[in-house]
């Protein structure tokens, strides 16, 4: 197990390097010019100087190497220092600067992360909490009206794109009923009950949209996995021993059916960070997705590159975690 984990971790490094290189080269080819927002009256030689100041003067492989160094050494040191409070951890020198705001990319990401984590993370949590019981009961009473309704709702939730359900909810709850605000207010500080209620109200719709989508997917897996296990021989044995139905389903079957579901849940965690781009756009949540879109529109190459590689790291990491979880939970699986 240990050697497997180590080997996978080592293999992840070239994978991530390659992904970073691909994204870097894609951005290198892109026609967007970070200088295009500047006034046209700037003379060409000044313009050239400004380009050099942005670090655009050197060959691409030198810039890639520099970015790589900053990304893997300097930025993590600052993040660590901010998290632990030890200032001696900081590596001095240049940081990855956003073209748009001229401030370090890591700081902007740290500012935007809480919104995304709150909205998308909560909806993922709710999705799991809703999906698991529904999946269990649907499978236990297969083809009952509850199962039919549950399967239909999960199919609908799985098929409706968030850029349709989002405006639909805005229309019903903000425009017709007036219960929730249309726009998410990021500057709201929760310091009183009134503000807490306000925060709850503005989070309700984006969280609901994403919960519906996440719950729909997890329910399908949970139900299928329960159905696979309910027909196994050990279930009949447990019943024959005279165990109560409750123990048979909630202990014997549930524990075995959760194995694939837990890995699916782990695989889905990176989407907490990446998958909500559209929902954030619809509800104007000022999170990482909105940051990425803004950076792409503004040709903010360092920001797009850093964010995409962070997303890629999360995906690779949680793939690995899912594999390890699978082996930990299921003693029949051995990788060595």
């Amino acid at each position, binding site marked *: 197990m240990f050697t497997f984990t180590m080997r996978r971790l080592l293999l992840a490094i070239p994978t991530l390097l390659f992904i970073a290189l691909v994204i870097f080269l894609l951005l290198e080819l892109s026609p967007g010019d970070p200088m295009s927002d500047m006034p046209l009256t700037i003379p060409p030689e000044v313009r050239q100087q400004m380009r050099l100041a942005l670090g655009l003067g050197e060959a691409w492989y030198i810039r890639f190497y520099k970015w790589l160094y900053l990304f893997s050494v300097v930025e993590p040191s600052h993040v660590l220092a901010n998290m632990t409070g030890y200032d001696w951890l900081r590596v001095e020198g240049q940081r990855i600067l956003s073209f748009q705001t001229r401030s370090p990319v890591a700081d902007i990401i740290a500012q935007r992360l809480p919104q995304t984590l709150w909205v998308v993370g909560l909806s993922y949590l709710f999705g799991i909490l809703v999906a698991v019981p529904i999946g269990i009961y649907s499978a236990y009473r297969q083809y009952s009206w509850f199962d039919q309704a549950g399967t239909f709702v999960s*199919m609908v939730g799985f098929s*409706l794109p968030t850029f349709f359900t989002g405006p639909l909810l805005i229309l019903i709850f903000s425009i017709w009923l007036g219960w929730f605000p249309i726009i998410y207010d990021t500057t709201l500080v929760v310091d009183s009950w009134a503000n807490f209620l306000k925060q709850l109200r503005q989070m309700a719709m984006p969280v609901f949209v994403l919960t519906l989508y996440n719950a729909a997917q997890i329910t399908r897996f949970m139900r299928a996995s329960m159905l696979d296990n309910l027909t196994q021989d050990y279930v009949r044995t447990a019943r024959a021993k005279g165990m109560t139905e409750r123990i048979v389903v909630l202990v014997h079957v549930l524990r075995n059916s959760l194995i694939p579901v837990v890995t699916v849940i782990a695989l889905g965690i990176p989407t907490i960070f990446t998958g909500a781009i559209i929902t954030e756009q619809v509800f104007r949540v000022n999170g990482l997705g909105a940051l990425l879109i803004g950076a792409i529109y503004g040709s903010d190459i360092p920001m797009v590159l850093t964010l995409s590689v962070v997303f890629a790291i999360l995906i690779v990491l949680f793939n690995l975690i899912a594999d390890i979880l699978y082996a930990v939970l299921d003693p029949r699986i051995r990788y060595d």
Partner: protein
Amino acid sequence: MTDAVTFRAPRNQWWDVWDQFKTHRGALIGMVVFVLIVLFCFVGPLIWRVDPTAIPSGRELLRLRNQGFSLAHPFGTDNLGRDMFARMMKGGQVSLAVGIVGMILSILLGTLIGVVAGYFRRADGVLMRLTDLFLALPLLPILLVMSMLFRERLSALFGVEVGMFLMIVTAIALTSWMRTARVVRGDVLALKEREYVLAARSIGTPPRRLIVRHILPNVLSPVMVSATLMIATAIITESALSFLGMGFPPDFPTWGRLVADGVDYLQDYPSRSMVPGILISLTVLSVNYIGDGLRDALDPRIRGR
């Protein structure tokens, strides 16, 4: 003497599949809905001969814009007085075409890589590493960057509409072939060890014919299932890109674009984003149900029960 031996003509296996498919009510309804939507988009314009891009001029513009549902304009008109019914058909043509062509390209690529990886052991390691790599890419950001990247160049080469179509379809195919490739590779690995493949090889069948005649027909069912689901993915991806403003140009209607345009008028004219939204949802829902039904129908363990 020839006895009355009741001889039943050999029944094509696809009839069995169809029989099983028919018992799945959701899939059947899904198919009817999907066919209706396709007819609406592709046959509709022959009957409803209104130009989706025609803007009324002069005083007509003031009179005809922002109309509600009426007989003359079943879905009303937009802020420039264009007929929404015709725009819905035109938008559907684009969305469905993107979905179907994107699906075909993605399936071709996925099957090719899956078969090569499964059949030729030497290519297996490299190709599966490549698949893992693609699975680790953050897809939506990459799609957005690609669309920003090639927009101008392809528009200059093929014209705006064809250029964008080619770009979106290629981008969708390049970012969605991985699942098909994995499924196909797994199946090919298992099929390769079967006796009939050994028999075919022992009479000197070259690999190319072996794959085309003996292996491909047997991986057809998982490929068909992922093909239907891929249509849904492709339609959603295209709509998401258009919704974010990275897809087709603004005056060119696609369902995703129409939703995005309508969101600005959500307060006063909610139908303008709701109708295309409902059409996308219905299409994706019906396609997913068809996929579910196909999966059951093509599974020989379930068939005949």
